[in-house]
């Protein structure tokens, strides 16, 4: 495989000089054993490179770029989406040896880790310090933080603390050209940290991460309730969310999975729900009463509670092992992770079960119920061709159903190659084209984890722009035709339009609140809505925005990065490109790891990339703590931000002064 005829063959000599001959493996067995990960797909690489440290990784990537060898970074290889499968061959970069926890700063609340650190190892290191790292995927015992970051892994605690992208503060990455970048979420300007780290290795290789750590909650209370039907469980979940309770975890499981985990359960139980509260004692007591009431209303069969650590572990044991114990049922497992709006969860699940029945596939369902994330874990035998074909059909139908319901085909596993084709169900040509251009801008040779995430074909009609945008689109098109630059403003609290000849494009006219969903706890508002108005409207319904009601519009606060963590609460975003193309991403589902993280990219972009027209924001039942409002200042664009500017706005029409045009 490493012969001189392959692309790697020519680079081999140089790479052996960098990392040593012993770390370059080209034998058939090493290649075969790096041809797979946790998903069914397989493809052989040309070589496996054991990377001893980050410094040499940079040299290796430079060499690979020079010789045009595709590469795939890999740590534990436990993902469910085939993200670490070397589709185009080339080199597998084994980063497992980069496994040091370099620094833990409890004062400022962060830890610096290398990508190969196993999640549980960080948790173990933080435990004696009284801290924890919030993302806890069920695979935390064996999955690495690098992989979690690349796929935006979630977990039980995502409901309260956000998924991995929300917990990464800064990152050191290596671009496909071999350049080391130090990115920070708190920097002014567009959030490149999320875009690059969350790209499943297609835009960069992560070499170090600074992750958020939090003090361990002292008051933990766990409930486990069994229900006689799955519908009751989901109704219970919906009621808990609608009551404004925000548990640390809200997990459910169906009977097939309960059987597979081999934990005892009462007779007649069809589903179970685990609820974990970590609020302070006074609130917890109140919430406990409410939860008991909701569970009783939804006909819970048995309720168990746990206060101490040992009992909690016992309650959680079955849930943690759920995915892997389905291996007991059949040799192959396909784990899907559709995310829905929480209000539509019960009926979506009913439909998914209908699909299972239709194709007669065996599947266990596990739910991160609190954030509307469903794991239909389909078990099958790939040697049984008929069964495999049925599974294929069922999977396709589930993806289509998810896209139609306005959900995300991937809540936390990422896209990789397993869900790649289904991306076309979820995004239209405009959105996918934008992502493709971003990939091409960062990685023109298509060497970094090639052929992942983005589908080759697109299907379906482009998403039509809503009626209220017609005027604005028309104006943008006219300006573009005339070559006039546009200045994008919200309510004008940050900066005023100064240019006379430039067309001012204000979102002030877009001041409607489009949707308030009390069951799902989200609000959709047009970009020009004043934060104060939205807050007032929500307060009538007992809902609160995650950020304080500052001056200015919601779109302005988002585009100017007024609050550092505002992007963590954005679930959907609509925007217009400088050529008048309307793009709508996300929706009312809380979790999303499908495609590149464009919403976070636009956070702090100052209108230089796109004109944001509407935002969907998570809301809460309690007012947000007083967050520090960031000082407004223009950012100094880096080379990478400029690359993206070219993708969005090659003629520099939107807010041209940001990227150094004439002011």
């Amino acid at each position, binding site marked *: 495989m490493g012969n001189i005829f392959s692309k790697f063959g020519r680079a081999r000599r140089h790479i052996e000089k960098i990392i040593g001959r012993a770390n370059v493996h080209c034998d058939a067995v090493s290649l075969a054993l790096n041809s797979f990960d*946790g998903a069914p797909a397989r493809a052989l690489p040309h070589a496996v490179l054991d990377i001893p440290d980050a410094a040499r990784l940079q040299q290796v990537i430079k060499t690979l770029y020079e010789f045009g060898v595709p590469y795939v970074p890999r740590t534990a290889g436990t993902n469910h989406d085939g993200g670490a499968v070397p589709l185009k061959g080339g080199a597998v970069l084994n980063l497992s040896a980069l496994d040091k926890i370099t620094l833990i700063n409890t004062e400022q609340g962060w830890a610096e880790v290398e990508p190969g650190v196993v999640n549980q190892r960080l948790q173990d290191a933080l435990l004696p310090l009284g801290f924890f790292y919030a993302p806890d995927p069920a695979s935390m015992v064996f999955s690495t933080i690098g992989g979690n970051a690349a796929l935006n892994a979630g977990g039980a605690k995502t409901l309260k603390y956000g998924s991995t992208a929300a917990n990464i503060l800064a990152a050191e990455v290596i671009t496909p050209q071999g350049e080391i970048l130090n990115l920070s979420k708190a920097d002014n300007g567009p959030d490149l940290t999320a875009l690059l780290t969350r790209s499943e290795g297609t835009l960069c290789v992560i070499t170090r991460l600074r992750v958020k750590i939090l003090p361990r909650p002292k008051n933990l209370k766990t409930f486990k309730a069994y229900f006689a039907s799955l519908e009751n469980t989901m109704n219970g979940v919906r009621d808990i969310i609608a009551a404004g309770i925000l548990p640390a975890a809200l997990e459910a499981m169906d009977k097939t999975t309960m059987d597979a985990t081999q934990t005892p359960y009462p007779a007649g139980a069809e589903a179970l729900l685990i609820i974990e509260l970590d609020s302070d004692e006074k609130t917890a007591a109140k919430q406990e009463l409410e939860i008991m009431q909701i569970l009783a209303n939804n006909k819970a069969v048995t309720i168990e509670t746990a206060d101490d650590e040992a009992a909690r572990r016992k309650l959680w044991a079955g849930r943690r092992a759920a995915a892997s114990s389905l*291996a007991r049922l059949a040799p192959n497992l396909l784990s899907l992770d559709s995310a829905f709006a929480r209000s539509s969860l019960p009926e979506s699940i009913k439909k998914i079960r209908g699909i299972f029945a239709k194709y007669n596939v065996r599947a266990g369902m596990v739910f991160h119920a609190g954030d509307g994330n469903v794991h239909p874990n389909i078990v099958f035998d790939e040697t049984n061709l008929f069964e495999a074909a049925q599974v294929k059909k069922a999977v396709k139908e589930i993806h289509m159903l998810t896209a139609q319901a306005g959900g995300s085909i991937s809540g936390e596993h990422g896209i990789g190659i397993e869900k790649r084709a*289904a991306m076309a169900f979820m995004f239209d040509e405009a959105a996918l084209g934008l992502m493709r251009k971003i990939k091409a801008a960062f990685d023109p040779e298509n060497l970094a984890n090639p052929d992942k995430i983005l589908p080759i074909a697109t299907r379906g009609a482009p998403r039509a722009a809503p009626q209220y945008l017609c005027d604005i689109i028309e104006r943008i098109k006219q300006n573009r035709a005339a070559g006039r630059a546009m200045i994008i403003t919200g309510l004008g609290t940050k900066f005023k339009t100064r240019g006379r000849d430039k067309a001012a494009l204000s979102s002030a006219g877009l001041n409607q609140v489009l949707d308030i969903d009390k069951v799902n706890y989200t609000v959709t508002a047009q970009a020009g809505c004043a934060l104060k108005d939205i807050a007032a409207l929500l307060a009538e319904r007992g809902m609160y925005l995650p950020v304080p009601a500052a001056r200015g519009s919601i779109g302005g606060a988002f585009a100017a990065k007024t609050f550092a963590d505002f992007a963590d609460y954005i679930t959907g975003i609509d925007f217009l490109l400088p050529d008048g193309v309307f793009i709508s991403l996300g929706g009312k589902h809380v979790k999303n790891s499908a495609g590149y993280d464009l919403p976070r990219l636009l956070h702090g972009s100052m209108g230089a990339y796109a004109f944001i027209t509407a935002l969907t924001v998570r809301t809460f039942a309690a007012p947000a703590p007083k967050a520090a409002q960031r000082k407004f200042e223009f950012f100094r664009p880096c080379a990478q931000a400029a690359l993206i500017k070219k993708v969005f706005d090659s003629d520099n029409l939107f807010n041209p002064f940001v990227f150094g045009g004439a002011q």
Partner: protein
Amino acid sequence: MKINFDKTQPFMPAPTQGPGRKFIYNVLRGPLPPEESSRLCNRCGACAQACPVYKIQKREPASPRGRHQLLRFLLGRQFAAGTKKADILRPAQSCIMCGQCTAACSVLAPTAAHMAWLKYALGFCGGGFWRGLWSKIVYKFNKPAYTPPQGAQITAFYMPAAGGSAHYAASLRIIGKEHRGAEIMDEGLLLGRATLMQGAAAAAKILDKIKARYEALLCPQPPPIITDDIANYRALKLSTEIDEKYQNIAAAARFITDYMPPVKPPARTGAGRRIAVQDNNLLFCGDEIARRARELFICPRADFLLELNQSPGSAGLLAYGAQHADLQQLKRAFAAACAARRLETLIVFSSAEEKFFNMLFKSYYPYAKAVHITAAAEYFYEK
């Protein structure tokens, strides 16, 4: 290989090539594990962090998942022509057979057993060129080929310990004296190894699969199943706990010591005894297994083992397995003892471990030597 991903295609054909002229499978010396056993794994990767070798080497071929998949590819004949035997053996050799992966696995895939099996099937004996040549010659004339038992004609089943050795043939000879139609029962390997690694719980899981085969084999009054592996024996005896139907199996199980000639009790002092207390010995076994072994062996020997274990000369008991949290500490103690005292003898309870430890010692502890417990009986006492 080019694959079209345009279609919704969650599954792909494995892009490996079929067998060629120089065919690795031609060198397989013995039977491989049943295919269904090699397909237990769904690649979740939970085993890797439990594997002490992976934690150091951090490479997929050194992880239990990699080893398991290796066997799966081999059985599926997915390696290309010209694949080197040494490459295939490397992942197998890196397995230290501690069984931690099986403990972490939800299907309890017996990867360590598979590796023992693979090593044997590929003719690995760790004895260098001459021993390899010798084993090839022996194999030529003395094929331990598996033939399915023929029901009523069978007068006894012999379930050898994993690995196979000279001792393997000797035991069969001993059994053959009493039972003319003795047959080797290779399925027992899987059963026995899995039990050894995991204890009762694991045995129960794996037993379900194996039991189906037994049922076909065994008549209402089954012939004795004789084993020289304490773990196999234990698994067989355990089968009663699950189902009354299998009491027959439990009743039929015998340990090889029932068929071995009685041994003279050792002289407490004097020249009758080969190993003196002041010699450095190490007893290698799991607690539970040791207890059973003591029960099994007739009194004087049990006394001797007990004495050996507690004697001031011995380096202490090296336990292993998932149950033992202080595994690392014990290993350190073991290494220290080896270095400090020029350790000479290590007694192990299964022939597979005997092979493994002798291989290990060769490179690290040149003075040490592992001896299988049944062979140890001959080693310790004069006939």
